[in-house]
């Protein structure tokens, strides 16, 4: 799996994790290029449908990053998000996906380093898991 470059979709909330990602940039923390960030205002805006869509389009992994519990800019959006993602993870497992392909993590605006660490670890995890098990065109 040496040349496997995973395709990872990362949803970041505007206030904490997107700012944390910016913070990683400001601090010039280096990390793999495999992820693309989609900004939403809150992790609670991420509809599990968006995650399923990403997987259906061939994403090898999906991350949802939000504010730490108790730190949500919108008070409790991250609590809603964690419930939805927990249920989504059950659904993905039923499909046969390795649940590690979906990661929910909390990154604050000041945690550029945690952002870096989270990305690096997730890329490693997905590299170890290999490409998405979703095979197109198999009838």
């Amino acid at each position: 799996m040496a040349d496997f470059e995973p395709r990872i979709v990362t949803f970041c909330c505007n206030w904490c994790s997107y700012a944390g990602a910016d913070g990683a940039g400001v601090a010039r923390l280096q990390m793999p290029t495999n992820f693309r960030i989609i900004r939403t205002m809150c992790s609670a805006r991420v509809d599990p449908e968006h995650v399923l869509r990403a997987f259906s389009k061939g994403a090898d992994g999906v991350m949802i990053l939000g504010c730490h519990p108790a730190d949500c800019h919108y008070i409790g959006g991250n609590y809603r998000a964690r419930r939805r993602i927990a249920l989504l993870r059950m659904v993905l497992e039923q499909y046969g996906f390795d649940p590690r392909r979906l990661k929910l993590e909390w990154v604050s605006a000041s945690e550029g380093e945690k952002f870096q660490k989270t990305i690096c670890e997730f890329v490693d995890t997905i590299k170890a898991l290999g490409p998405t098990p979703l095979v197109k065109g198999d009838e």
Partner: protein
Amino acid sequence: MTKSALVIGGGIAGIQASLDLADRDIHVYLVEKDPTIGGKMCRLDKTFPTNDCSACILSPKMADCAGHPNITVMSYSEVVKVDGEAGDFKVTVKKKPRYVKLKECTGCGDCVAKCPTKNIPDQFEYGLTTRKAIYIPHAQAVPRVALIDPNYCKMILNGKCGICEKTCKKGAINYADKEEEEVLEVGSIIAAVGFQLWDAGYATEYGYGRYDNVVTSMEYERMMCASGPDHGHIKCPSNGEAPQKIAFIQCCGSRSEKKNWKKYCSSVCCMYATKQAIITKEHAQVQEDIFFMDIRSYGKEFEAYIKRAQGQYGIIMHRGARVSNVEEDPETKKLTINYTDKDGNGTSAEYDLVVLSIGLNPPEGAEELAKVLGIGLNEYGFCETSVFKPLETTRPGILVSGAFSAPKDIPTTVAESSGASAKAGAYIVDENFEPCAPKQYPAEKDVAGKEPRVGVWVCECGINIGATVDVPSVAAYAGTLPHVVYATKTMYACAQDTLQAISAAIKEHDLNRVVVASCTPRTHEPLFRIACREGGLNQYLFNMANIRDQCSWIHMHEPEAATKKAKDLVRMAIAKACLLEPLEGAKIPVTQKAAVIGGGITGMTTALDIAAQGFEVHLVEREGQLGGQALNFRHKENGVDTLEFVKGLIDKVNSNNLIKVHLNAKVKDIPGFVGNFNLQLEDGTDEPVGAVIFAVGAPAYKPTEYNYGSDAKVMTGLECEQAIADGKFNKKNVAFIQCVGSRNESVGYCSRVCCTTALRNAIQIKLADPTANVTIFHKDIRTYGFREEMYRKASEVGVRFLRYDEEAPLPAYDGNTVTAFDLTLGADVSVPVDCVVLSNGIAPAREEKEELAKMVKVPISKDGFYFEAHQKLRPVDFATEGVYVAGLAHWPKHMDECIAQGSGAASRALTIISKKFLTSEGIVASVNEDYCDGCGVCEGCCEYKAITIVSKDGKLKSNVNAGLCKGCGCCVAACPSGAMEQKGFKNIQIQAEIDACLDYPVGGE
């Protein structure tokens, strides 16, 4: 006719003061002597303690200033005469000739490229590079236009050249340009002229000017900066090689009796040197040593920053080490620093590069300006103010903010500038006051049903993006994508000329969507949105791709992969942009009243400043009387009794009809949102207010150390002050113990005020009884700014200082003696005492703060104080709109700082409550009633109670209050029927991003 306000100085101080006045609908003239606004801050690389990129956080404010309809920026101009009096000044402003027509020049730089007259030292880069006779001050200059230096221009000097005139396609060159004068009628003036740097040429012992590798801190700042002469690659000037060892020498030009040196402390150098050391470490593996006397990390989260520098970054701190001189090896150009180590031994060390942490001086021309303005200067040449009137000069109607009154850091400057604008506004707002009319933008084009026509700008951000990402190829790629009709690269997307180009291109190419690929929307989206509006496009038809912070900066060593990623990000942004719809914010009525929680000095100041502009204030105090902790103070400031001042303030509050005081009052809840809060007290009071200010203070730390309370010899600093004032203090052997309840394992921060308090008391004791033995046990003495004078005075009157190790436990006390290891003597020292004064710090009272914090959803910092929206540039704002913080609730600080911040909070609140209506965010949830059956899933998951299920024509429907909705989108994901949508983040828009991200192979094409 309503008068304007005048702000002199276009640095961060002047910019903030102008913006606050302008947002309060007062017209402002902003006069700056340099060709561009931005001051010193726009030359900085990063800012402490958050390491924010200085230019990144400042340039949006510079652009706001330039684009604000209520601000007239007069750059390259000086005030030469002030007639009249407060409320009715006539100010003569001299405009220096640019020899380039301001309105014609597009800043294209063609003339600069062709100009034959080179090698003129570039002032912006502190002479590190050169410029030409015609030049643009710097890339992010506002206004970003060229000007000619008449001292070098051959055409102006002897009429031979004229190349720039031939080159300029706009015909903007005007060699006959003349100095002009204009008379402005203004109601009040804010002098925010900042500071100048100490001339390092006086540091002969450190070899500045003689040794190649000795540079000043500001020069180093430019060397570090990615937009600086070496693009952020730090090199030894002697040979261009990367230094392996760097030394920072503190207090250059400060805290010294030497000729041409300054006696005061410059307040900011400890922190900026530490910042420079940290940032350098992030770039390269370098050994860095800082030589200093005391580390003065007294500000918010400064102490933790210093700790991080030592612990995490391994920066070597030479405490109490005064460098005697620097010597250069003429062969290698390496530098030897001779210094006294902590054991008192003379020693030396060799470095490749030495950075002199130079201090802050009064601004150039301060005396002249003071004469013109008719204001007084203090003994150091800074603007004269007093502790109780920190924002007022000696002349009514003329205010001061920022470093012109004393050396200070950026957050303090910003808070003061807001405060000065509140004071300045009070001279202008009267019963005849007419607010400025809102800015008129061109009519917005109708894009409904039209095929998307996207314009794309890909920013190089100097080399920030361009050095890693192949920007031309990204721009070319963008041009191949569907619906893109215009795609280009640009050096600085945020520069004034690009913003204008965006507006122009919207018309020229009939664009109906705009995408900018540059930095982060968190800082720059507002800027580009304005550019869209200027071009007649709804501001929500704009989208950004973050190819700097989240691409070039984090993939610096993978240019190819980063370029591919940038293409993906641009494609995603375009895909979403095509589906964006024009949005309008809702108009929300505002209750034009404010609530101030806390009736101490800060709260009373805030209330008075708001009332001074004619708005009603509810001042809530939990005790039975106003005044707060200052009621216990017994010392004088500037010869005036603090208690008298406080009583005067209470009288002013009580006699002001617009201020409703609620005593013995406890806040029950503050429901609502910006412009529409309800102040609910436990006594049943329920008053609508538009803004809320938290000025709840912070109590003194109650010591548990030294048997305080049971040992009669032990007292707190305040008790000592009271005893002295009452003439009851008669102790002979006094020990002051600093940092009780501060800078320890459980309380990480410095309480900022204790050193000054201890010195004041110690001096009093010694003056009253010169035979008394007074010893101050300390870790560092933090008498920043002019407070340094007290330190000097204390030594003069014979107060003894004993520095103990900051990592060591507090000095031991056995009931009769205080013992500590004296770092200077290198031995244990015991001092017999009959009195121990504990410099007990300030405790945050986190629990009390949390109660209020929950009501309006604001955060608390890890130290237990309120956490503002941005540590550097929004020091009194919260992320929750309409709620502000000032005084000790924000961080420990001195009385003058509390007063200035109180005024600052008043100004911020005034920007809200001075208007009858606010316009809400466009990004809110909305219900498509055709699909909604009121199942209520959304209602239950809205944290802001913005959603209610209502009956419409007998059918249940969800209803969103746009004023309460914060636009999180939680309900949208929850909605099972697809009836709920989030404007700006609609499902199809997010889906488009996902699809655009994945429908192509990794890396585009």
